[in-house]
């Protein structure tokens, strides 16, 4: 069981070297070149296949490097989603939020875990969504367009990243995998609508207006909000436009070249430019995808105490720790915590002053039974820089209202775990 993981780690270590990026782009260029060449020689299917293969290779190069949950600890919303998913996978009771005393938040990843999908698999949902989105962009033209050559042309353009340079929804899909579900729903509706003759006629008669509307929608989406979901909306709008109008480009190429062989040459040049100028070719997640670096370079130091907590504490345990550790504990050690990862979220949690008082008491080495019981706290995690609680004061040693802290874990990086024990 360990061997594949180790192999994958080795692969990640190799791929994460920045010197490999030019090599990746050289390989992608070759895929683009041979894809374009195949198109010029009327091998339309082969062309789409090569471009799709190149695109998949380009995506996999980056996606395989993602190790820990993407966006955890970087984006507040995604951090909450992963935390909830982690708690849903193993903690008891199942219905509660990852912060003790709150209600569970719905998200795709949390719902999948609740439905019984293994958490290890769910951690790869961002990668699956991106690849799924890519496959979908290639398949949709084949589903919606009857003419095979037109479908291949549209699929080839979309596989390259579309006609507008440097616009892609892959980053948004990775951070918000549920967008793929929305896209699937939209495509399903489009397929159903495509069966309506009246609608097809209406589309044809208003095609210019629709094209302008889609460009305007894409431009406005990106104008209102830069990055994230807006990019996905813009990408979808322009992909839809490509889907509707790709055949016009072929017509234009034929009109401009005057012969079908010349048109194919023009088309193949355009395909090469689309593929090599597209979002896939130049996608650079370490610089453009928030959380990618954090998900690639996982923290080994924090991993050990989290694994200890996961393996050595009961599922109903609630871990008392500073808010900095809340998300990692919930997402990776699968235990509930007492504090939200961000101070801004404290307002949604009942009894913040009492929670803070309990943490202060624990730091002083004298958590009270009443407060610990109120929040069902069972363990305390301290990180580097946090002082170890003093030994019990002889004056309160016999005080049954005060719990004692039993050390159960300590490592070289100064992570410590204590169990809160009632005195007898």
């Amino acid at each position, binding site marked *: 069981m360990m061997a594949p993981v180790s192999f994958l780690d080795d692969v990640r270590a190799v791929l994460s070297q920045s010197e490999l990026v030019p090599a990746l782009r050289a390989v992608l260029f070759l895929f683009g070149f041979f894809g374009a060449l195949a198109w010029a020689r009327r091998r339309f299917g082969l062309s789409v296949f090569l471009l799709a293969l190149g695109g998949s290779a380009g995506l996999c190069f980056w996606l395989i490097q993602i190790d820990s949950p993407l966006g955890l600890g970087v984006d507040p919303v995604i951090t909450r989603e992963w935390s909830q998913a982690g708690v849903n996978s193993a903690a008891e009771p199942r219905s509660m939020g990852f912060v003790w005393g709150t209600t569970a938040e719905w998200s795709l990843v949390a719902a999948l875990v609740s439905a019984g999908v293994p958490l290890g698999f769910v951690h790869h949902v961002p990668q699956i969504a991106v690849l799924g989105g890519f496959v979908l962009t290639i398949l949709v033209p084949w589903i919606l367009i009857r003419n095979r050559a037109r479908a291949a042309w549209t699929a080839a353009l979309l596989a390259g990243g579309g006609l*507008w340079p440097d616009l892609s929804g892959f980053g948004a899909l990775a951070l918000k995998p549920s967008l793929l579900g929305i896209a699937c729903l939209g495509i399903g509706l489009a397929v159903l609508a495509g069966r309506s003759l009246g609608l097809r006629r209406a589309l044809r008669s208003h095609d210019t207006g629709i094209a302008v509307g889609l460009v*305007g929608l894409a431009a406005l989406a990106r104008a209102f909000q830069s990055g994230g979901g807006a990019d996905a909306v813009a990408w979808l709008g322009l992909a839809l436009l490509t889907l509707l109008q790709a055949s016009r480009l072929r017509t234009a190429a034929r009109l401009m070249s005057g012969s079908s062989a010349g048109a194919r040459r023009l088309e193949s040049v355009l395909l090469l430019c689309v593929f*090599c100028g597209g979002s896939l070719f130049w996608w650079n997640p370490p610089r453009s995808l928030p959380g990618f670096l954090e998900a690639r370079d996982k923290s080994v130091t924090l991993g050990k105490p989290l694994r200890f907590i996961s393996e050595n504490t009961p599922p109903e345990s609630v871990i008392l720790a500073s808010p900095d550790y809340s998300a990692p504990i919930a997402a990776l050690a699968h235990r509930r915590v007492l504090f939200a990862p961000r101070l801004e979220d404290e307002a949604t949690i009942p009894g913040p002053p009492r929670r803070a008082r309990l943490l202060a008491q624990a730091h002083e080495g004298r958590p009270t039974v009443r407060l610990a019981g109120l929040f069902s706290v069972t363990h305390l995690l301290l990180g580097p820089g946090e002082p170890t609680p003093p030994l019990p004061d002889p004056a309160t040693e016999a005080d049954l209202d005060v719990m004692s802290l039993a050390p159960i874990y300590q490592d070289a990086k100064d992570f410590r775990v204590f169990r809160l024990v009632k005195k007898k």
Partner: protein
Amino acid sequence: MMNLFGVAIDGLDTSALLAATRVTFVIVTLLGAWLARRDSDGRSGGRIVFWIGVAGHSLAWVATMFPLVGVYGMNASQDRENHLGWANVVALGFSPLHTYQVNHLHFEPLWPLLTALASGFDVDAVPRVFQWSPLIVGLALLVSIRFAWTRGQNPSETREAEAAFAAMGALLLVAVPGDFAGAFRNPWALTFLLKPNHALGLVLVPLAALTLARANSLGTRLFAGFVLQLVGWAFVIHMGLFVGGLVVFAALSWMTKRTERTRDLIDAATAVGANLLIVSPYLVMLVVAYPFLEGNDAYRISFFSERPFEGPLRLGPLFALSAFGAWRAYHGEGRLGRILASQWLAAHVMWQAFPLLGLVGHAREQDEVFYWCRFWTGLFAGVGVWRAVLMTMRQVRGGRGTRPGTIGAATALSLTLLLPSLLPSWWDPKIMDQYHVAARTPLPDWVADPARFIRSTTSREAVFAGDRGYAKWIAAYGARRVLLANALNLPNDFRRRIEIETALLRDGDQSLLQEGRDRYGIEYVLITSNPMEQAPDITIDMLKERPHLAAVYDRQFRLARVAIFKVIQPGRKP
């Protein structure tokens, strides 16, 4: 906090401002497309496209500059701070031929002179001029390209619109959103915002091409050479690249056996010769003082880098369209089209030479050649899109014959199709521009406070020695000259300067101190608690013991202690 426009920006919602500028541009462009569709003669459509270019550049400029508390590039760009220092010393009345290192000859004297003139030789107005100049130079580029294109091409109904698309493309199609993650970052920001002096070269290039296209006698050829040398004074690399393009122009003319090939060769050779003759003193200065013929490891790049793809292919389909635009321009009616299309080809050929140059350590100024490539690609992408759309519409609407409204419809459709790629519709400097982010923070106190002291209490002739790392800030924010600065090339007499500097810092020879005063005008020494590269053992307290120095400023800041000493002339009391 106030920005350089004098508006308080505390609590400014920058994200909302940026979104507002982008949305405004999108709406303006869609509205423009709506209005342009009725154009029948190509004129009003051309004007609309031109004004959309004006609006786009202005909005992107506002989005970037308005939230800044200082000059764009402050806190992050040594190049920009150097320029500020150069302009300051010229605004103080010193020679534009010198940098802020006293008596040090300058490579780019035109820009500091223009900036000083624009500021009315008021050093306090220089930062405002720096803030406005990217807007003015960008708009000047629009005017210049449109002027050259409409004057240089034969009259036709498409000329106006084509000129406007060329101008808009050269300004707003030069970048894509992901450029910020690339090696050379966003060409629009780095050319027009960070280095408007280089962009000035771009403004002059179409005019140089126009004068050459019209040359038909010795006088007009020499005039073309004169305009070309102006490009050299603005930015010598653009002149070199343009001359490279003229070589391609003449070569293509001979290769394709054009009837006017001899004339092309004579015109280009005369203009280049005249240009080199006029600009030769500058070139000699450059050869002597700037060792660009020596290979260097810093300019070595792997043969297997991404360079070949970055220049042409990063713009995707726009590159293909720019190739189409250049092809059509070359085979069009005018000579100007051939000159400009040759520039497009030469730019890409020169860019592809970098992996080879990199092998021998000569891949210098890659960024400038990259921006040059993008400039021509953007210009012809604008033309190419419009030409392709017009051609297709004419074919669809019944052969090559014109039909009323076809030009207007093509203009409207081209504008709409280009909209998602036009920079102002996606520009987000908060994410995409490190210089914008850096300049939103005030200068650190250990730079700002001493700079205020220097400006307010020292004479404009005062020259500073001491910390060479700090020297650029003395010039940029204190507006005074220095003896030596790490941010600039060493002057030819650097050995003597170092001897004088050593004498100042180490209680040296009186005659050297006297020479420092008489030859270089050194009046002050500034050092900080950070060890100086050339004298790491010297401390502020040690300098306080020197009999020839008198402390006039000494303050401890959170990050450093800064002290300024007045140099006491021999035989005088402090």
